[in-house]
């Protein structure tokens, strides 16, 4: 099986995208407010992300291979472990969200504990097969989403209500800023990119640019659709995953909820698989090292679920944002500077 080989820019872009969309679709908001401030919040956070991604993009475009190794040389293991800890928490949080979703919407199907365990077994197995397999599978899952979306749109009985698109009002500032912060704190694609960039064949710029554009288009479109077609109805439905197929109905398939869950469960296994793969990067024994972060993520997921912690708790938001800043922005920035200094020194020595 493939293990440590390379992935293309397109494959990395889709992996980042699937992980991001997964989080958006699993996030159960307390109440759906006006769509426009949220769309604006997403637009602004994307602009910030674009700037924040520059150090990592420059580092990989200049031929950088491994950020922790660049920064700490042979003693990079400790710093690499930070990525492991960070993505173990992210994996656990994602699994906990999915387990909660299963409990809320498909309680008869599987218990949250069983959902957590099964999901992590599948994800750990996927991670053990290597990044190349995950990258190629990501493309297939993306097309699966596209087909499912087209199918649901084709049989949808919903219609646009443009009155739902309420213009921006004075009170929308709070919604905007909340969504802006939430969106930024969901930008763990930056540390993801810092790790997976080492597996990239070429085209760091293409991967990041493509990701940002596609993410913006897809999530903005989803927000617009939800606003125009469902709006407050989403409070009843709960999850954006289900909201998408709320009006889809056909003689053959009565409701699309379970089918939506089917596709998102595949995506969840894939996204968590990528997180676990990232966790295993500092270790050499891949098969064994996949099981350890998976088990830790499972413990965290169950703890989070049982204690009723939400993924947008202030301390978790802080943890996520802190990780993004340290591992996704500062680390590549320092690596870039170190790389430049090294170049300067070697040039000086040659002269």
């Amino acid at each position, binding site marked *: *099986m*493939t293990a440590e*080989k390379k992935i*293309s820019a397109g*494959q990395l872009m889709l992996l980042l995208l699937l992980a991001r969309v997964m989080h958006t679709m699993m996030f159960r908001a307390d109440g759906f407010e006006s769509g426009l401030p949220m769309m604006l919040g997403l637009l602004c956070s994307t602009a910030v992300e674009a700037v924040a991604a520059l150090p990592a993009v420059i580092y990989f475009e200049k031929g950088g291979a491994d950020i922790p190794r660049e920064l700490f040389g042979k003693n990079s293991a400790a710093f690499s472990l930070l990525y492991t800890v960070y993505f173990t928490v992210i994996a656990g949080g994602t699994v906990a969200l999915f387990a909660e979703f*299963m409990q809320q919407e*498909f309680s*008869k*199907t*599987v218990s949250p504990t*069983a*959902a957590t365990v*099964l*999901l992590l*077994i*599948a994800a750990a*197995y*996927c991670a053990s*097969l*290597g990044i*190349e*397999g*995950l*990258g*190629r*599978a990501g*493309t*297939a*899952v993306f097309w699966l989403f596209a087909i499912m979306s087209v199918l649901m749109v084709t049989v949808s009985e919903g219609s646009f209500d443009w009155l739902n698109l309420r213009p921006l009002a004075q009170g929308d500032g709070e919604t905007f800023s909340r969504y802006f912060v939430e969106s930024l704190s969901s930008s763990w694609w930056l540390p993801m990119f810092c790790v997976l960039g080492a597996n990239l064949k070429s085209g760091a710029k293409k991967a990041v640019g493509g990701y940002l554009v596609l993410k913006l288009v897809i999530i903005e479109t989803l927000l617009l659709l939800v606003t125009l077609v469902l709006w407050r109805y989403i409070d009843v439905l709960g999850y954006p995953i289900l909201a998408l197929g709320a009006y889809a109905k056909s*003689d*053959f*398939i*009565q*409701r*699309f*909820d*379970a*089918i939506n*869950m*089917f*596709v998102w*469960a*595949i995506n969840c*296994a*894939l996204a968590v*698989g990528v997180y676990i793969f990232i966790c295993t990067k500092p270790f050499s024994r891949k098969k064994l090292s996949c099981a350890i972060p998976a088990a830790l993520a499972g413990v965290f997921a169950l703890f989070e679920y049982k204690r009723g912690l939400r993924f947008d708790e202030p301390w978790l938001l802080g943890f996520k944002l802190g990780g993004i800043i340290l591992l996704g922005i500062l680390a590549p920035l320092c690596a870039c500077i170190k790389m430049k200094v090294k170049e300067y020194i070697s040039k000086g020595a040659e002269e």
Partner: protein
Amino acid sequence: MILMIEKSGGLLPRLEADISRIKSAFGNSADLNIVRLEVSGVRCAVLTLEGMVKSSSLAKMLFEPLMGFEKKNAKPADVLRFLLDESVFSTEQTPISLLSEAEEKLCSGFAVVLVHGCTSGLAISAQGFDKRAVSEPDSEPNVKGTREALSDSLRTSMALIRRRIKSPRLRFELLKAGKISNTELCLVYIDGKAPKRLIARAKKRLEKIKSELILTSGNIIPYLAENGGSFFSGVSTTERPDVLCAKINEGRIGVLIDGVPFAAVCPALFIENFQAVDDYADKPYYATYQRWIRFFAFFISSLLPGLYVASAVYHPEVLSRSLLLNLLASEERTPYPLVAEMFIVIVMFEILREAGIRLPRSIGGAVSIVGGLVIGDAAVTSGLISAPLLIIIGITATSAFVVPSLTPQMSMLRIFNVILGGLTGFFGIALLAAAMLVNACATDSFAVPYTAPLTPFTRRAFGDILTKFSAVRENVGETVEDLNGAEIKKEAEN
């Protein structure tokens, strides 16, 4: 001196000593024939293995000229010179000087001639063992393609390929494998099309074969395939010479095995399981339609029973109301839970399928009738299983026959999907699908992604994958190394 020759395994100048050494090497095997004769007063012996040579040919090509040789006061060296330099007995004749060479040639169907007083002999090709005539490809039938299948005899299979590719660029390379069986393997490829790295790698792997006997293609495939943990196989098999020719023309290599009417082909792609020879004989629109039917059949065969169980037990909202009511009415009469019912019927189907394959064809048909019609009808009538479930299994079973090369994978996926669907609904099926998808995507066959050209996507190859609108393009000489993600070329460059 003689002791030294004996120690080094060379032939001795004493005929009876050599004969007894060969006899002892074969353990006095009953099929070792030894004919002692005198040629112009010099004692000789012709050794053969029973059934490996054609007696009538041997009499004509060897015994007649030998008996015709007359020379006054002939010495052993004269007879040997006559054998080695002055006569042509067969198109393939090799001088031998070692005992091991004599043994090897005997096992390959040669006649070995030993001359008293000489430390060398002659091996003459006179193979004439019984073999099956070239028959129809039973496991890969078609409507408009050739009716010839590869043969058990390696040489016949080679000729079948050579007849289809009349080019000096077609290469056959003979290798030996099997510690005891010493089976001949033949690497087939087209020079300039198959990457050199691929050929070298395949040879290296074949040389590593540790099996004692090579009796089926399954004995060599694990050595050729590099993905030990893969659910799918990066090496395919075919019994059709036309398919093998088409594959090697795409830069792949084939491995023929003496005694096996199947060739192993590598690298193999997932998508090839859905291609058939008739696609290239039919109109493109019809070939495209048939390909999509095959894709559809694969998913039906793997997923339908699991999805049915999961929908009926956990996700009834997916089904339309009238269908759901029908199902409920049917299932109410049955004594077992739906999962158990489905599991039992699938196991029954597998038993019937296995019986149909293992039994003689005449009885196999009867088993299908008894199993499919009589037991099925009785089970529904008696209320043991529901009619919709039987319909589902009927559709699944029929679909399974559409893509025979993926039968093992489809059978296992079917049963796992039923178990997971019955225990955890669509969720479990989705997790299995994710694991299988990543497994297939992670499979590489000789540095070519198994899932290419779908993912990694190759636009140029797409015309011949999901559609068949590229009747001209298929002849432009593109090979597997042109697929995106294929690293063979890059490796060769490095």
